[in-house]
């Protein structure tokens, strides 16, 4: 048969063209930040409102929590539509990293009109998107409700896992790490790393934690880092200014390896996600579970997934807490509507409704002291359910998050020193 040279020629040409396009197409948009829509930031609020009318906002957020989804779909969306004519379209993601990955791809492809208008982020995802210029501009200080109700000077709000927010994201929610137990089975919940070790040894197979890099599992080992190495203060400086960290962290790996033989399945494997751990708890295979949402357990009880005797506890020396934010990506096509939506979600009404377990049950990001007396009364009247700790107990047992750079370091270290061990 004659060689189809012509075909090879065409194919070769195509491959070359793709290769060149792959290299060249990316250089065009190095700046990353889109130049469009600067006027939205300069416009007065009335103009922003009228620009926003009739637009649709695509909000991307972690979709694994029924109560969060319920709050967005059934509380926020209909009110936003009715009051401001802005349609809210919730797009659930399995992991917030997927949002960042999507933005990176869009940036690489030079897509000016992106598909994401609002996203719910914090911590390392914020650091990554800030470092790579995936976020829009400093919009948060322009929002009326931020000016009025947010304590913008509080370090817990100004810094996101140690990284200054500089107004490119607006605080939306707060969370605190809590442990969950069945009070019928566990009479004295272990309130420190040492007590947990004793408990685990006495109850082999009844405890485990999700494998980092799962969000919850990763938070658990950070909290245990504080517990086993003497508090959070030494980690306030950035990772690259820290010396001898490998030696300090050894205490954490030793601790986790010491409890490993007594964990569920003898630590041969770990649940790959927090929902798998919850499932193990719900079925009685383990007696403790954990989560980065103080109201999660109460919600699970309400929905009948967790036993009625479920309670939560925090560690004596405090558990991790963080603020999470709403942000607008560099290529959002509906920036005005995005600002209107975020502003609405920071209104006292929306925030109070958010802290009601009927809707969701998450902690407020706005300052309760800045609420009107009527608002404060409403807030205090909320029945948070038996499984949720009182706000005072939570507030008194709170330690700040570690700077985002450590998160990755610890996750890699866990794989190396604990999982492989």
């Amino acid at each position: 048969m004659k060689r189809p040279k012509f075909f090879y020629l065409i194919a070769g040409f195509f491959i070359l063209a793709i290769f060149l396009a792959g290299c060249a197409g990316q250089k065009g948009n190095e700046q990353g930040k889109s130049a469009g829509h600067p006027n939205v930031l300069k416009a007065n609020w009335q103009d922003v409102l009228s620009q926003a009318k009739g637009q649709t906002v695509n909000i991307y957020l972690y979709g694994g929590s029924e109560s969060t989804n319920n709050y967005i779909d059934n509380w926020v969306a209909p009110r936003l539509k009715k009051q401001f004519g802005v349609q809210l379209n919730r797009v659930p993601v399995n992991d917030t990293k997927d949002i960042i990955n999507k933005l990176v791809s869009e940036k690489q492809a030079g897509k000016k009109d992106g598909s994401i208008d609002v996203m719910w982020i914090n911590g390392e995802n914020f650091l990554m998107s800030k470092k790579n210029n995936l976020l829009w501009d400093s919009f948060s200080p322009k929002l009326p409700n931020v000016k009025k109700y947010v304590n913008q000077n509080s370090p817990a709000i100004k810094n996101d896992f140690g990284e200054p927010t500089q107004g490119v994201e607006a605080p939306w929610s707060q969370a605190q790490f809590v442990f969950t137990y069945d009070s019928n089975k566990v009479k004295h919940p272990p309130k420190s790393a040492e007590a947990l070790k004793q408990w685990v040894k006495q109850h082999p197979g009844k405890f485990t934690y999700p494998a980092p890099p799962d969000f919850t599992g990763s938070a658990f080992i950070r909290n245990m880092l504080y517990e086993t190495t003497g508090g959070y203060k030494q980690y306030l400086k950035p990772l690259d200014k820290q010396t001898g960290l490998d030696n300090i962290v050894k205490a954490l790996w030793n601790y986790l390896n010491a409890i490993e033989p007594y964990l569920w399945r003898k630590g041969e494997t770990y649940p790959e996600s927090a929902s798998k751990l919850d499932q193990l708890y719900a079925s009685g295979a383990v007696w403790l579970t954990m989560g980065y949402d103080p109201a999660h357990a109460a919600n699970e009880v309400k929905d009948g997934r967790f036993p009625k005797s479920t309670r939560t506890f925090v560690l004596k020396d405090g558990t991790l807490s963080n603020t999470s934010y709403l942000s607008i990506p560099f290529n959002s096509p509906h920036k005005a509507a995005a600002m209107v939506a975020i502003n609405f979600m920071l209104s006292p009404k929306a925030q109070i409704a958010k802290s009601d377990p009927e809707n969701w049950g998450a902690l407020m990001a706005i300052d309760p002291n800045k609420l009107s007396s009527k608002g404060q009364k409403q807030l205090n009247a909320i029945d948070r359910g038996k499984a949720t700790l009182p706000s005072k107990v939570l507030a008194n047992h709170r330690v700040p998050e570690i700077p985002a750079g450590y998160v990755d370091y610890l996750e890699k270290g866990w794989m190396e020193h604990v999982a492989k061990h």
Partner: protein
Amino acid sequence: MWPNIKPYIYVLPTAGVLLILFVGGLIEGLIQSLGYFPAAGQYGFSLDYYRQLLSSSDFWDSLILTFRIALLSSLSAGVLGMFVSVCLFMLKRPGSGRKNQIWQRFFQLPLIVPHLVWAYLMVLLFTQSGWLSRILASLGWIHHINDFPVLVNDSFGGDIIFTYAWKEAPFIALMIYPVLLRIHGSWFEASRVFGANRWSFFREILLPLLMPTWISSSFIVFAFTFSAFEVPFLLGVTYPRMLPVLSYNLYTSGGLEARPEALAVNVILAVIVSILGVAAYRLSQRWSMDEQGGW
């Protein structure tokens, strides 16, 4: 010259789409695995990520595990698929057409269940806190649900192999059944005359005819299980991870710096699968040359 070009013009649309989407993605991945990643401000080309990967024990542990699981999965799916289709063939007698068709459909049933669904079913049914375990515990056959044997997330990967065998056996059967249909029923009678029993009929006549198709379809299963993600993600253990899961973890954890390494894993996956593909093609071709003559 014109009439010569014509067929190529006809295939151009298909070839174009294939080249842009498939080869384009491959090239994009290759470029990024070499460290060229403008979105993260990296513009150099280097083999550092490959060096880093090849010198890490994580990678080799994953590679060995992936090989073992893919090999065992495709072998068990292959044997099972062959067994089922030959059984269907042997059962086929004149007049049993309808019944045979029902059997055939029955064996094809797993094809319509997605991998993800089956993996999740494994979790729901066979974990220690799963459906079966709880039934046994409430019947009193086992003392406590934790006495139930570890069938899911076991470090051998038995659950992954089982899932793939169950899912892919019908695929193999589907591929080789048409070859079987071309064999006359009278051949069996003829072989009886020469003193062959069922087993030797299978070994001497069916097997050589089926081998080329069997090898290539088993290879398709191997390539798939070698690089598929969802089943090992749900059913695997924390360490070691199969290569696709390793790549996913590298891709999603930490900063953008680990990206090229994740894509290097994918490129290595693609290279291994293509080398094996060429080998399998050669093998099945040689088999058909040697054994089949002009079939």
